[in-house]
């Protein structure tokens, strides 16, 4: 007879995986015109110390009366007790969240998803390539590596945005340029301020600045709009980065986060439990994605 309740991970059997805990917004400020930055802390302090996660994992956030949606985490688990995330006005839920202020509470459950394979990435050179809002999940990885700098090899951070005003965490990343333990390259498609001191052009232009790369020994994490993937992946394959060392984080509609509601299915995989981080080699097998965001030209 089949056993009725098999729990494969170390979650308590009686836990309701859909139960949101209440978190308080403790800090909020605009990053760009339509993206706000939030810091939240659990109302129950014991919860704050229990919460652990990996860069690349995500949370399900609930707004009372509005509903629930997945959001990537922008903070690093190496600075525990607080969660940070970026909200862009995109629908009714984010519209409400966008207007919320310090001391208001939201529901949060998670973390979910596989996250970046930090154990495999240790000891390797790391290249992070962010485009637009892709900086939100990749900031978690970047800060985690900076906080554990001795465990990783060479670190390169590439970030492209449409304009200087639309670059998430612009001041924070500008300061990173001062550090000598990473190479931080920032670019904008168009400088409409006249004050931009960094590069102008698409993110792939930054590849010229990279210098020698130990491709076999490098992990690359990419997140950005579909059009960016297309060109970035072509470059990375040309550089000789192994396809299973190119990491991408995917976005899908999600209602549960625990592999049950079905919405985030890509063939036999669920983005919420098998992802959201996939290797380029994984993605090459997702026929649904090839020919959409990622062109088949990349295969050749």
């Amino acid at each position: 007879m089949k056993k009725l309740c098999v729990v494969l991970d170390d979650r308590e059997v009686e836990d309701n995986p859909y139960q949101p805990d209440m978190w308080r917004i403790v800090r909020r400020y605009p990053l760009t015109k339509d993206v706000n930055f939030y810091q939240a802390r659990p109302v129950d302090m014991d919860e704050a110390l229990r919460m652990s996660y990996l860069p690349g994992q995500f949370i399900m956030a609930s707004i009372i009366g509005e509903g629930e949606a997945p959001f990537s985490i922008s903070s690093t688990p190496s600075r525990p007790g607080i969660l940070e995330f970026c909200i862009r006005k995109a629908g009714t839920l984010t519209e409400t969240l966008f207007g919320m202020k310090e001391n208001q509470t939201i529901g949060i459950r998670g973390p979910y998803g596989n996250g970046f394979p930090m154990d495999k990435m240790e000891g390797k050179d790391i290249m992070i390539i962010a485009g637009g809002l892709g900086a939100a999940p990749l900031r978690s990885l970047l800060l985690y590596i900076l906080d554990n700098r001795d465990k990783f090899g060479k670190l390169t951070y590439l970030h492209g945005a449409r304009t200087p005003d639309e670059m998430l965490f612009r001041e924070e990343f500008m300061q990173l340029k001062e550090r000598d333990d990473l190479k931080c390259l920032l670019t904008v498609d168009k400088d409409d301020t006249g004050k931009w001191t960094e590069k102008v052009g698409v993110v792939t232009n930054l590849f010229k600045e990279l210098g020698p790369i130990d491709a076999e020994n490098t992990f690359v994490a990419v997140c950005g709009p579909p059009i960016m993937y297309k060109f970035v992946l072509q470059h990375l394959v040309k550089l000789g980065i192994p396809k299973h060392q190119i990491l991408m984080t995917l976005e899908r509609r999600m209602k549960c986060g625990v592999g049950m509601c079905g919405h985030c299915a890509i063939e036999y995989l669920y983005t919420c439990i098998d992802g959201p981080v996939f290797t380029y080699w994984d993605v090459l097998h997702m026929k649904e994605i090839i020919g959409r965001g990622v062109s088949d030209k990349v295969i050749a």
Partner: protein
Amino acid sequence: MMILKMKKEDLSAFLESIKDWGELWGPTKKGEKVAFDKVDSLSQMDLKATRTIIPPKKFLYPPRFTMFDFDENGYVERTGDVPKRILFGIHPCDVHGILIMDKLFLETYKDPYYAERREKTLLLGHSCIPDDKCMCFATDTDFVAEGFDLFFTDLKMFYLVWVGSSRGHDLVRMRPDLFSRDLQKDDILNYTEYRKWKTSQFKAEVDFTGMPDVFELAYDSPVWDELAEKCLSCGQCSMVCPTCNCYNVVDDVELGSIEGTRDRYWDSCMFREYSLVAGGHNFREKRADRLKLWYTHKLQAYIGEFGEPACVGCGRCVSTCPVDINVATVSKALKEQEVGK
């Protein structure tokens, strides 16, 4: 596994005796169709019926229910208001469907809503007579060895009763006088004959062998677009499929209030909004892409993951789809690279 024998005329008395455990539900006639309904006795059930409109998944995972009540202080789980039920007359295909649901809802993470209903529901299976839409022979789900509490096989003169769980055994122990272990040579021959007879009754022309490869090869086939031309995106196939588990979640709130409920209801990947994300990007805008997801899940992806299809051959998509798109016609169209009429 324990197999017992019961006189056919004793079934009614047995069901009467176990009714104390919970509500008795069974297949009943609704015009020309059959549906599970609450009954008082065996006489109200139609045990000759083939498939009910909706599979018994609706008892374990209702079409719509409340997960949480919420107010400004947070979310409070809503469990505990589930009645105890005895479902009688579940066919082997539907037991297999429930086994697939168990895999989805009870492994990795345990869904507390499904688990509670599963625990409060006894499954009493009953053998069936295949009709021209039954395809369980092609999905290896025409007989069943687990997942039920009791299973009754009608051998004309008597029932053979499989005891599939400790709870099923408890039911037997409520009326031990009605069961016997006195199995003779003739009983065994009778059962082998029954299996041969059932196997000979299937009329549907369907063959799922090699489907994962066919799906892979036919991924870009124009057959998908031709099927999509016919498909109405009505989602009925998902509602009637015993293995469709997708759901949507909405917060229902009274106007001018912040109190309300978080409800969960059946969804279908045939619906346009299924893969729509905030900001308006739709990962499956085309109807062909949504059809492809449905059938790939049932006959390719699930096989790759679990070694068996997520189709139990119940024939409900065959009897329900208004434009004749179903596991049989789709697999045939892909194999022959031609959409039938």
